[in-house]
């Protein structure tokens, strides 16, 4: 697994001086994220991926784009427990943030098979568990709808010259992946503080950072620059009444029931409600539900709880959530939409 990942490792941003590249190469020295060898990032792909991310023609009835669930103001998460699909089918899991998603070894709450953004992008478009964008079995409409637009034909030709500009699910997924790899966010107050700007975090948040890494026992799982070990843990006893068995649904191993991937915590103040099913409405609630893996949470004073929350709030990079490069594009092919 690791070997394969390493084989795929290239630089994320091969697109000459794009600002995200400058952000990634900061003194915190976060190693470059892996990029599949067959989908190098280019400016044209990113531009196409951005248009597709906001295009509701990727849903069966034209009502839902990726951005319907992944909104920039919430760091590309959503403010509801779960979000229904384009045809109204109930959602199953809480919408994850997409900030720094290029670094995640496995994607989604509990499916270790999903290791690339290219593979992941087809899940909401064609998936049936649950039905989200509803194009399962109707993939041909992608070529019909997008191919009817001269500007899309031009954009696909520029992004995929080696594939003859083919408009299909596979190229759509590649472009979406390339765009999402530019969603880099490492400019939170916590980053500035770690780089030596002692004024970047309040005293309360600084005490919270110490608790997080120390006595509160959080950093064992919420580790590294994105605050996730990428592994699967069970925070609460599994019970047959829980409809979501987590990792066990994939592995078939009863011991994996109730295990979910440690979620990265950047922007966590914007991404509530929390947990795989959105069942924790607030940060205090989410922290309190860790008692089985971090018994110290039961001994936290309310002041300490406030400090932890202040630290988690300092993981919000407000420039990222308003950055025009990730907004819905208003012009394509040199024309206003």
């Amino acid at each position, binding site marked *: 697994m690791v070997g394969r990942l390493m084989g795929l490792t290239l630089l994320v941003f091969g697109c000459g001086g794009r600002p995200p590249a400058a952000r990634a190469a900061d003194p915190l020295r976060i190693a470059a994220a892996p990029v599949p060898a067959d989908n190098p990032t280019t400016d044209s792909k990113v531009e196409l991926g951005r248009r597709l991310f906001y295009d*509701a023609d990727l849903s069966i009835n034209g009502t839902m784009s990726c951005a319907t669930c992944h909104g920039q103001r919430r760091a590309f998460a959503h403010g509801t427990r779960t979000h229904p699909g384009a045809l109204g089918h109930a959602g199953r899991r809480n919408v994850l943030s997409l900030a720094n998603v290029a670094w995640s070894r496995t994607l989604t709450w509990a499916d270790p098979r999903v290791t690339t953004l290219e593979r992941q992008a087809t899940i909401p478009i064609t998936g049936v568990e649950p039905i989200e964008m509803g194009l399962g079995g109707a993939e041909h409409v992608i070529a019909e709808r997008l191919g009817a637009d001269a500007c899309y034909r031009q954009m696909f030709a520029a992004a995929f010259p080696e594939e003859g500009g083919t408009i299909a699910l596979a190229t759509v997924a590649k472009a979406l992946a390339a765009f999402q790899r530019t969603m880099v966010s490492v400019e939170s107050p916590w980053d500035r503080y770690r780089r030596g700007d002692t004024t970047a975090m309040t005293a309360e948040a600084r005490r919270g950072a110490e608790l997080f890494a120390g006595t509160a026992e959080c950093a064992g799982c919420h580790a590294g620059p994105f605050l996730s070990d990428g592994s699967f843990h069970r925070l609460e006893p599994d019970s047959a009444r829980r409809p979501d068995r987590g990792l066990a649904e994939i592995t078939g191993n009863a011991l994996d029931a109730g295990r979910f991937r440690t979620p990265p915590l950047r922007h966590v103040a914007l991404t509530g409600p929390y947990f795989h099913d959105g069942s924790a409405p607030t940060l205090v609630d989410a922290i309190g539900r860790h008692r089985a893996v971090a018994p110290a949470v039961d001994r936290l004073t309310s002041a300490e709880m406030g400090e932890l929350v202040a630290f988690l709030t300092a993981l919000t990079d407000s420039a990222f959530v308003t950055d025009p490069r990730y907004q*819905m594009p208003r012009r394509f092919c040199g024309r206003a939409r």
Partner: protein
Amino acid sequence: MRAACYLVVVLGSLLSRPTAAQTAPPDCRPAEPMPPELGAWPDRAPLAAAADRAMLGGAVLPVGRAVDASLHRTPDVNFVSLPEQPGGSVSFGGMFTVEVVEAGSYRVAIGSAAWIDVLVDGAAVLSTAHGRGPGCSGIRKMVTFPLPAGRHVLQLSANAERTLPLLVARVP
């Protein structure tokens, strides 16, 4: 293994029934009464939406009157302000003029999950509340906006159907 996977797929789609409904399902028994301000909802007359700014004068939606809005294909709509969810080429959208006599909170209730914007002086107003309608009412989505007196533009976008049940009500 293969067979097991297919089984899961089938079960999954049976279990997750669509919740979308333009009208209440016939066997639905209301758990809560309709609040009086939404009382006009069942009584709807057709009203054509505007597709561009010039048509807005002829698409006036009175507060408190429920309509079956007839929308336009999204590619034919020239929104006054690009909605956050404009909808794809196969979706429907449109605009109405809403005349607010008295400043206050106004609730836009619709029978689908379409995107709703109210523009005051051309800019989208931030909503103050979101919700579903009362059970079995057929109201799928309600969004509340604080509005000053004046003529404002209601934009509806990313709707799956050409027709959309719609009511703008003053919040008491």
